[in-house]
């Protein structure tokens, strides 16, 4: 079955393209659409931004360097060349950038155009904050951004009514050498995984795709979870919310906002919109990076991983899921099906904090999830979980013990913070030194206390 998609208004069928080819390379080399640029090939600069839209979905901006061509199946794709007809006036987004002197060297400009175009299609309120969030995945080295932000302000947010065509999607694509499976049911997914144990399981691909974009290595076999119905559900009952493993961050965000605003705030900093439109919580979990942002929060919130293999379904508590550096409790035939997050009870005090060199679109030096229950001024339960402090996302039992039973005071937070600072032996690397990581981890407990008890005192620089 071919890969079918609409590109700048024209229906395309591809039969021969390698499934390991990135969309960026495809656009530039096969389609000679040179407006889309490669600035980094790792999804961090945004010069390759395009938009995609499924038949029922919204316009989403993505990094074309981190997408494989078969992931376009069924999509309507727009590049900077397709935003306005060749001899027509520029699109309002393009004109706003011209009018605001918001392009200098021009290399990042097509990416900004597409990110801002997607932003105008969301219908959200235009504020400095929403603009920064919308372009957090786009780097400009010339302008200092002010004119780009002004261009966004001048545009406002006004969605154009574009109804993309329904395009039949394939469950299997091959160029004759490599295979790309896109099963639609959990049963098929599990069966494929056991038939092809060496295949790469692709969720959003925002990390995995670097094998193609940077390492220039073929995948051989890929099993995509994107179209599996069961993995795309978000289910809520009285006690929990269950996120299918293929639910991307953009879809999860409003739900997280509702149940744990602090977690949602952290997810907004987890990559750019381009990343969050593709990336999934399931992918972040299975990637099992010690500096992943969601695992410490999920551990602190006492989430449960629901996994599925040939033997059926089983459940693993989040704090038992990460076994070692980039290792999980998944058996070779198992896939992550869903993540169940208990609804925080009203008395649960929870915060997630992330410390990195840059506020947006940066990988954490330290990330902390803190959850305590206080009764009569005494800490009766505590879950403290950290990323960036060990080979895996990990709870801090000694620190938890230093909290439980103590009065919830600044002194307790400082004392438990000192314990926390000594509980791990983090690495020194380019993100932070061992000493800094330890000190910050401990200090975050102080912030947690102040943040949740001193309403009128700002405790984060972004609060000003």
């Amino acid at each position, binding site marked *: 079955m071919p890969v079918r998609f609409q590109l700048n208004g024209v229906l395309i069928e591809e039969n021969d393209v390698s499934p390991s080819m990135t969309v960026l390379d495809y656009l530039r080399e096969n389609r000679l659409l*040179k*407006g*889309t*640029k490669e*600035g*980094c*090939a*790792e*999804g*961090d600069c945004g010069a390759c931004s395009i938009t995609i839209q499924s038949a029922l979905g919204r316009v989403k901006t993505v990094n074309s360097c981190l997408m494989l061509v078969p992931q376009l199946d069924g999509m309507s794709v727009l590049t900077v060349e397709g*935003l*306005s007809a060749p001899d027509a006036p*520029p699109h309002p*987004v*393009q*004109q706003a*950038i*011209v009018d605001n*002197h918001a*392009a*200098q*060297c*021009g*290399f990042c400009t*097509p990416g900004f155009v597409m990110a801002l175009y997607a932003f105008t299609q969301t219908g959200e309120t235009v504020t400095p904050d929403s603009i*920064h969030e919308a*372009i*957090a995945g*786009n*780097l*400009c*080295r*010339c*302008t*200092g*951004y*002010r*004119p780009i932000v002004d261009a966004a302000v001048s545009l406002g947010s006004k969605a154009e009514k574009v109804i993309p065509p329904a395009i039949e999607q394939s469950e299997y694509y091959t160029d004759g050498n490599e295979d790309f499976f896109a099963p639609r049911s959990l049963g098929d997914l599990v069966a494929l995984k056991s038939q092809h144990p060496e295949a790469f399981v692709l969720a959003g691909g925002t990390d995995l795709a670097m094998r193609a974009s*940077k390492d*220039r290595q073929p995948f051989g076999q890929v099993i995509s979870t994107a179209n599996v119905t069961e993995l795309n559900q978000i289910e809520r009952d009285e006690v929990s919310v269950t996120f299918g493993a293929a639910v991307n961050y953009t879809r999860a965000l409003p739900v997280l906002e509702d149940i744990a605003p602090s977690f949602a705030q952290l997810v907004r900093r987890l990559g750019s919109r381009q990343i969050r439109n593709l990336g999934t919580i399931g992918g972040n979990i299975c990637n099992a990076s010690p500096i992943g942002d969601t695992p410490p929060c999920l551990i602190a919130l006492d989430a449960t991983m629901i996994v599925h293999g040939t033997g059926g379904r089983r459940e693993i508590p989040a704090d038992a899921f990460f076994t070692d550096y980039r290792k999980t409790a998944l058996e070779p035939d198992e896939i992550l099906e869903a993540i169940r997050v208990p609804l925080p009870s009203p008395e649960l005090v929870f915060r997630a904090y992330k*410390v*990195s*060199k*840059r*506020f947006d*679109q940066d990988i954490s030096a330290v990330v902390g999830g803190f959850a305590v229950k206080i009764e009569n001024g005494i800490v009766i339960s505590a879950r403290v979980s950290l990323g960036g402090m060990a080979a895996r996302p990990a709870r801090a039992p000694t620190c938890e013990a230093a909290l439980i039973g103590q009065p919830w005071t600044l002194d307790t937070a400082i004392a438990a913070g000192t314990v926390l600072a000594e509980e791990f032996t983090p690495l020194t*690397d*380019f*993100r*932070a030194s061992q000493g*800094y990581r330890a000190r910050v981890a401990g*200090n975050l407990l*102080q*912030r947690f206390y102040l943040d949740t008890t001193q309403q009128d005192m*700002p*405790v984060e*620089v*972004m*609060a*000003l």
Partner: protein
Amino acid sequence: MSTADSLDQIKGAVHTAVRHDSAENHVTGQSVFIDDMPNVPGTLHGALVKSPHAHAKIDSIDISAARDLPGVHAILLAGDVPGRNDVAPIFEDEPILAKGPVEYIGHPIAVVAAETMDIARAAAALVVVNYIELEPVLTIEEALSRKSFTSPPQIMRRGNSIQGIADARHQISGEVSCGGQDHFYLETHIALAVPQEDRDMLVYSSTQHPTEVQHGVATVLGVPVNAVTTEIRRMGGGFGGKESQSTIIAALAALMAAKTRRPVKLRLARDDDMVVTGKRHDFLFRYQAGFDSDGRIEGIDILMACRAGNVADLSSSVLIRALCHADNAYYLPNAHIHGYPCKTNTVSNTGFRGFGGPQGMVAIETVIDHIARELGKDPDDVRRANFYDTADRDTTHYGQKVEDNIIAEMVDSLSREIDYPARKQAVAEFNRQNSVLKKGIALMPVKFGISFNLPTLNQAGALVHVYTDGSVHLNHGGTEMGQGLYIKVAQVVASTFQIDIDQVKISSTNTAKVPNTSATAASSGSDLNGMAAHDAANQIKARMAGVAADHFEVDDGEIEFRNNRVYARNESLSFAELAQLTWENRVSLSATGFYSTPKIGWDNDTMTGRPFYYFSYGACVSEVVIDTLTGENRVLRTDILQDCGRSLNPAIDLGQIEGAFVQGMGWLTMEELWWDDKGALRTHGPSTYKIPGSRDVPPEFNVHILEDAPNREPTIFRSKAIGEPPLMLALSVWLALRDAVASVGDHQLLPNLNTPATAEAVLMAVDDIQNRSQGGNS
């Protein structure tokens, strides 16, 4: 000549906010960068074989496996260079492929040309090199103690610094360092070399210095300079990173093209670009100063040691600009400023916007800060006490009289505008009420010298044709990297001819059209090329005026070019009609223009002279907040007043000011080059090396261009250079962070805060102050 306020003004005159000439092409994706040019069939792609060791001898190289890979056309080593394996911009012996020991991790050893980039990269990975590892020198300190330099130390001296320091009432000494910076132009290095007949070579190179690329390619290929043509329409950013480093990439592409007789494109992946090519120099400073009770400096000694890397490249020039900006805005009566370009086994550092000036200012601003802490004074009072002033305090430590000094006026004007004293009080009040977050505020004055330090480089050429329909073709030696040089020079030509700017065709920089050019660097692009184009246009205009005078039977002096027409008393012709008439009269409508900057001179033996035609000035106040628990920090507000002379294009200049400030802020805060203990750069892509994003820009960011400030020197339409000076205004951010850190110790102690002031550096400085201060709560 046009004036901005004339009623019948042409479109796109000088001093108007014309938009960038490529704006519409940029937003629609139609602008062609080198990688976007259509591939000629048969084009090959290059990849580098790089050293994994910081210092090693090459024992053996086995290319057999790589050569056998289908699609590979050539694997070339140092021995394959037909000419001289050397592209040193100033000195000698800077090979494009290692010929002796490898001297840094990433040092190119071989290049592979293959049918696709993927094959080339795969083949490069198959080249087997055996090394004998040698001891590397990885830090400035180590090179300094070994006296290992890439060129001789440079020393500026005035008066007797030892005596000046000793005789002063107060003395301080200290050490500070500043980090390097990757350019992170969005377009990585790229060159496309296309072999021509007669072994000529056409090279499309993303370069700020087409002439040096031309020379480098000719040297490497062993052909005369006239056999090589370099062309560049635009770069996707340069910032100094494509001043000398492009030559390496272009010469490698040309070498492969010459050997394979095929077009060869060499485009560096981002990680290779960051590992293989040079960056802003990091510096270590050691200072001693003596001063009076007002904080007025009486003697100063500053050691400036920079990381040159494995070869000299431009380091000696960067260093001299650092030495020349050791004063910033301050008079240094007895000064000994000595610079050392330290040879390390890291990539050779290169030019970067400001070119040593920003680093030099880090040193003197630290001294000012230190004096203030020592005396318990406000740093701004110490600054003012040291400003260049009247006749007895108006000469720099290298002997140039500061004739155009407006430092105090600008600082006063900005302070008044923003009510700076009240802002300081508000910051102090905030700090009294908040224990976790602390604010800081600081003012940074900037005086920056304009001209290449080396007088020879201050020249430029242009080529202007007028066609018989009145349309104009413009070419000059400057390059476009987004900074708006092309549009500014086009404005100059439009204004000179008094025609609409859309009549002026901007064309790619090409060494066959305008030869022997200087780099587009040192903020000099519009000063030099604008003047050269003005000269060319004026020559043609004078000839056309002569034809018009004959036609109207009036004196030449009665001919006036105005708003697309040419007038003589009450008669007129359109500019196009006069162009046609000029041709019919067999008078040339083409001219080359030339400019060399007057008044400048430099004695390299005494390190004195007038290196700068004039100075550019600016003043900036930034307010920041830090988190004393995590060191996280943020700029809350910045106010800038920048001198642009009489701006050629206020919109373009505003973009330069804002962009430079944000780039400088990144250098001083979040951009950290992190090498491991083997000498490997571990921050080599945007996932690990963080440049500012839109949220990092001060939420309140007020930029004003100084009004009614024509350059007192007769520069092009009395404008001033703008590319680099505003970058140094960002030092206000670092000074404000120091102020915030110092507030933790009630401003009694000098913060230990080097740059980049990352969250980690800020937290460590906060902890340090808390540990040192008696009442600390740590």
